[in-house]
């Protein structure tokens, strides 16, 4: 999982997209997603993917950190594209392009916006308890990640991993997952008590400071409108 790298890119970036507020970036993501989803033409989808790649470049995204993430949508869409390839090559490519395009659009949002800010915005519309789970998960993930790394290293150092002894590996994996879960549950109880002491009563307070629109927001909104207009013109031309 490269949530840590994605989070670092989102927090430390200084591009136009990083400076823009969450609402304008969510609008752009929505426009891109709708464009990808409604399009059925392989050329239009190819153009959209090219635009998305340019936007990633403009956001100074380190491709080597996120490229492998696109392997999942590529692989799973390929399973379905194989069926569509019976119809035509274009139909199969449409399936692959749609899955990849949608993944690129959501990744662009996450590599330019810190996770907490996205859910701070969504907290205005989602139930408080659900938002709390998202925020706690984010925090827990980083706490656990280091511990899992250490545990896996320890297992290997102490001879708990054998390339050809699958049974022993599965046994050790069961104990390792159990240990991680046990540790994480104990940690969650401690975390809950700390939050109670700090006055937690359901609903983590989040500051929302993005209602002032800046130049970056204007640029992102204009870009979103241009993408939608581009799609409409493409439809009429076809």
């Amino acid at each position, binding site marked *: *999982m490269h949530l840590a790298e994605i989070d670092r890119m989102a927090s430390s970036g200084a591009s136009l997209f990083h400076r823009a507020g969450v609402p304008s970036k969510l609008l752009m993501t929505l426009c891109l*997603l709708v464009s990808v*989803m409604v399009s059925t033409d392989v050329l239009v989808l190819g153009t959209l993917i090219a635009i998305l790649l340019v936007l990633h470049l403009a956001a100074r995204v380190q491709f080597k950190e996120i490229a492998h*993430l696109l392997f*999942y*949508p590529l*692989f*799973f*869409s390929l399973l*379905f594209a*194989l*069926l*569509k*390839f*019976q119809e035509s090559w274009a*139909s199969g490519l*449409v*399936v692959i*392009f*749609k*899955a990849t395009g*949608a*993944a*690129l*659009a*959501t*990744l662009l*949002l*996450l590599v330019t916006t810190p996770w907490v800010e*996205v859910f701070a915005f969504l907290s205005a519309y989602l*139930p408080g*308890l*659900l938002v*709390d*789970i*998202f925020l*706690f*998960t984010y*925090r*827990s*993930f980083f*706490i*656990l*990640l280091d511990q899992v790394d250490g545990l896996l290293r320890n297992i290997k150092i102490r001879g708990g991993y054998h390339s050809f002894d699958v049974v022993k590996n*599965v*046994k050790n994996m*069961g104990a390792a*997952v*159990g240990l*991680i*879960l*046990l540790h*994480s*549950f104990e*940690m*969650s*109880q401690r975390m*809950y008590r700390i*939050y109670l002491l700090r006055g937690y009563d*359901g609903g983590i307070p989040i500051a929302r400071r993005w209602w002032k629109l800046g130049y970056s927001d204007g640029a992102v909104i204009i870009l979103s409108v241009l993408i939608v207009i581009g799609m409409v013109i493409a439809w009429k031309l076809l």
Partner: protein
Amino acid sequence: MSHVHLPDGIIPTVWWVAGYLISLVVVFVTLKRVKAEKVRDKIPQMAMMAAVMLITMSVPLGFVPFHMNFAALAGMLIGPGLGFVVVFVVNFILALLGHGGITVVGLNTLNVGVEALIGGTAFRLLKGKFGSVPSSVISTAIALLLSTALMVLFLSTVGVVDLRSGEGILHAEEHVEDGADRQAEGLHGDDTAYRFGGIALAGWVAVLIVLFLGIISESAVTALVVRFFTKVRPDMINPEPDEDR
């Protein structure tokens, strides 16, 4: 590991919108049903479970991107309803992180959430009779098999695959319409037409074999985790009877 993540763009809009609505209703009802204080107490635990699932889901087992889910285990440890909520959270985060399927988060949640619902419920019903470890194997296997069956049934219902032939539905329709012409063309013509269908079918058979191997290995690991808990923290898998989960 028991299912295929549905990617964006293959499911008709009506279905994925319905999937979102149904899964959100289930999440809201679950959170409303449990007393506020109890849920608040469980939130850090649910978050930790989600974080563990995210970490294990991000470890591909082999060269293809298959991974363990532990959705059934989540249902056993934190309860079927709250396990479903955790699955929603995990799917949403994975979709945002480029795992794909932002439009089908609802459907993927229903598909994987069934594992938490059935796995957790079956485990509760069976553990008194068979003991914790055997019950965990049976519950996980049942949950994963049902989830896989539901996914295949759903894909067949929306017309993505044809259960009877194992091919894409469009190919099957073409087959019916052009049946007379194909007969006239003879076997050679049929062979050409089926070339891609054969690859697709072989691909899906391979996927199903991997899925069944996945079901076996996830059931085994779940049983080992449950055995570990029975030794060190039996209260985690045998909570107080009145605990609202």
